[in-house]
């Protein structure tokens, strides 16, 4: 009803002006009041304007914060989606690598790839002779380059002995400088931990076209790592998916069943009231308390595995149940009684009324509520910390009982890491998380728009 008020806004104030003005022309005893009103009118209108301004200011400030939050994370996280690579010409000399004619897998694992990279770097910069300068030179290539070479040789052993041209990932500091597009000829202007000499190397490489910025595939295909260049979110993504699947499988049927019972079958008595109050209260219990419940009951009493998606899913579904129940009840309530009466008139039993008519009509609303509840669960961190999903997970979890972590917890872990490279990784993981949340909410909105019926 207040929506229509704003239109009347100017009308209202005109009226009060008239009310104040009219008596003044013909009604002399009220002159005092009128002049009193007139005298204060300017002040009152100023107050009105101020009040309105406060409202606009409050909204603008909140939205401004939202914009600042999102842009700051976006700016910080965007570079993580790309990584800089350095072109290297290297001879995969069997002697340098320490490989025999037909290398065993053990030999391969122990092969001296880092020595090979160092040698190639020395060949690229032949005039570097001092110990310190050499050391600085070696720092340009990320240690993950060794793994890349190892994998290349493992997949394709006949390249040993040949000269190959390959792109190796740059070290974090070098990558940051290359990606930022700073002017390398002016080392003072660059904020970095690299020395001037290293920037000189970088300039030489860049000018020769031997550096390149590419999409950072590693970020989406790796698990966690202590090295920022190698850390990825795949393990966390899979963990989130598994956890959310358990949450959905448990919470959706139970919540819908509970909503149907409370809305359609429950007798109106004290017990039903208690259940209702209970559900409302559960919706407001701090999420960390659910974590304590999970720890005490599922892990310590039932000895379910720690850090497992199945336990995380159970805890999160207990947490999202109230949300989905409340939304489902609202959707069921919105189905008009005439539908129920028509079905009963045709001889349907109470359950047939619900399963055949009311539930299908309420489904879009229920699904919307479910998706919103799951989005909440996807962003939840605190209860999962309690049940040990804070582990350092390198391997991609393969099942519901494997140790796993989830995306928000990964964000939390990376945010705690002292390495500077993790700041951009954290922001990038947040971008991915927000992307999924936006997607889920968009689906919910779409579902509501597409299927919502007004009776």
């Amino acid at each position, binding site marked *: *009803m207040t929506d229509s*008020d*704003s239109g009347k806004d100017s009308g209202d*104030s005109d*009226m*009060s002006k008239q009310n104040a003005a009219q008596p003044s022309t013909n009604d002399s005893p009220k002159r005092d009041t009128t002049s009193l009103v007139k005298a204060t009118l300017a002040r*009152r*209108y100023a*107050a*009105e304007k101020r*009040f*309105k301004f406060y*409202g*606009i*200011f*409050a909204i603008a400030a*909140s939205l401004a*914060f939202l914009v600042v*939050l999102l842009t700051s*994370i976006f700016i910080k996280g965007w570079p993580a989606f790309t990584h800089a690579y350095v072109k290297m010409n290297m001879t995969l000399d069997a002697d340098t690598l320490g490989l025999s004619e037909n290398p065993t897998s053990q030999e391969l694992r122990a092969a001296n790839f880092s020595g090979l990279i160092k040698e190639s770097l020395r060949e690229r910069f032949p005039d570097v002779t001092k110990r310190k300068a050499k050391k600085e030179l070696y720092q340009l290539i990320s240690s993950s380059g060794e793994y890349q070479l190892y994998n290349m040789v493992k997949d394709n052993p006949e390249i040993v002995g040949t000269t190959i041209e390959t792109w190796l990932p740059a070290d974090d500091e070098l990558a940051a400088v290359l990606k930022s597009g700073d002017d390398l000829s002016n080392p003072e202007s660059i904020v970095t931990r690299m020395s001037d000499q290293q920037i000189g190397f970088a300039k030489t490489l860049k000018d020769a076209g031997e550096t390149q910025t590419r999409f950072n595939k590693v970020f989406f295909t790796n698990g966690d790592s202590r090295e920022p260049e190698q850390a990825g979110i795949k393990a966390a993504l899979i963990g989130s998916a598994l956890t959310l699947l358990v949450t959905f499988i448990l919470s959706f049927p*139970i*919540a819908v069943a*509970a909503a149907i*019972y409370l809305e359609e*079958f429950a007798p109106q008595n004290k017990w039903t009231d*208690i*259940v209702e*109050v*209970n559900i*409302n*209260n*559960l919706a*407001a*219990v*701090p*999420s*960390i*308390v*659910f974590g*304590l*419940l999970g720890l*005490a*009951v599922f892990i310590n009493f*039932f*000895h379910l595995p720690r850090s497992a998606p199945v336990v995380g899913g159970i805890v999160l579904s207990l947490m999202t*149940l109230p949300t989905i129940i409340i939304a489902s009840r609202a959707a069921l309530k919105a189905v008009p009684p005439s539908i129920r009466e028509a079905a009963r008139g045709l001889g349907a039993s109470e359950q047939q009324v619900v399963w055949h008519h009311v539930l299908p009509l309420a489904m879009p609303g229920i699904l919307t509520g479910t998706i919103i509840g799951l989005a909440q669960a*996807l*962003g939840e961190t*605190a209860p999962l*910390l*309690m049940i040990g999903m*804070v582990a350092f997970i390198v391997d991609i979890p393969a099942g519901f009982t494997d140790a796993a972590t989830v995306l*928000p917890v990964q*964000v*939390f872990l990376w*945010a705690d890491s002292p390495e500077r490279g993790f700041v951009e990784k*954290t922001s990038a993981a947040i971008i991915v*998380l927000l992307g999924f*949340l936006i997607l889920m*909410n968009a689906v919910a909105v779409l579902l509501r728009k597409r299927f919502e019926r007004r009776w």
Partner: protein
Amino acid sequence: MSTTTILLVAVCLAFVSFVMGRQKAYRIAGSSGGVNQLHSLPGHYGLMVGLWCALPALAIIIGWKLFEGPIVSSLLDNSVPLAILEQGDKRIELYKNEINNLAASGNITADPDPAKKQAATHLNTLRSYSSVALFLFSIAVAIIGAALAYRKIKLKTRARPIVERIIEFFLLASALIAILTTVGIVFSVFFEAMRFFSQVSVIEFITGTKWSPQTAIRVDQAGSSGSFGAIPLFLGTLLISAIAMIVAVPFGLMSAIYLAEYASPRTRAIVKPLLEILAGIPTVVYGFFAALTVAPLIRNLGEHIGLSVSSESALAAGTVMGIMIIPFVSSLSDDVITAVPQAMRDGSSGLGATKSETVRKVVFPAALPGIVGGVLLAASRAIGETMIVVMAAGLAANLTINPLEAVTTVTVQIVTLLTGDQEFDSAKTLAAFALGLLLFITTLILNVIALRVVRKYREQYD
């Protein structure tokens, strides 16, 4: 034989019995004059058989899995060597864990200790016996259940009421899970808290002013006796929540008033969802932002005007938390403001009040109980909020109300106490449950009052 396989077999059996039951119903109906002669629809007979097949088996599988762990673990007691038995419960627990890990590793022969090897093999045998037994038992129960129900199918069997009663029972059970969750929370947290209070007195916990939960792990360790006075935590929680409410209440309330009283329907339709985004952003994101952007900003500002600000100041965490809570305050207040009858506004306007005067003197007082309820709900959320404070507030329990210093909160302590490596029975980990109990009770009281206030107020105008 994994649990998934057993479940799959049970589901398949249930489906087969559903089909068979339905077919029998059709057959009986066919031999006695059509489907109309049946008491219920053929599908109901199928469902009856299917449910009789699946439900008992499912109950057995769930019950088995819940109690398999403890029972197998107690059977393992015999394999624990005497030398370890003498070293007390904790060492036994550790030894069993080692055996568990060894058994799960799939490479038992790698371990040098023959006793352990034997125990791990024994454990694996026990487990495989258990799963085979479960498989045979549950499948037998499923088949017997289905057969009994199948035999009961007659022309006048009341299949529909039977099925519907089972379904209604399932619906009721689902509704009761909410109660069960509350009971679970109360009991689990309460019992662990009681164990804590048997080691540390309640009085010391509630009135003590020194919080340093580091208990000595070794007996001869120095300087960490552990003291559990929770006053600094309460004060820290209150301080941060108060800062959050100071930010959230004016901003949320003014946004709600503007949206409800001034904004055009179009503006409202755009701005409201945008504000709701603030509530949808995961708290870990706010925590990251507070720790990395807001806290340094506040510290630099403070240094600029000559104040010493801690890098984990209560102000940073509180402000960001307040912004997160704005949408709660705003949408709850919006609801109550729009519920104030239009006649009251018209009356006020008719007397010559300006719009803001109407809002301040008529609408706001009328909506006040509801707004207070909303603010209480928001406060309970602020008190229970975890990630922002874990990431942006400090760990040290300072007894201060200076918002520029680092304080710690109840939730931060729960997280730090339970995420470290600690044996489970120490006072340190149990303290987390005592704090959790306190947190639960506080937020519960706030919620109950808030919900009651809101509900009571709504009834007035409905």
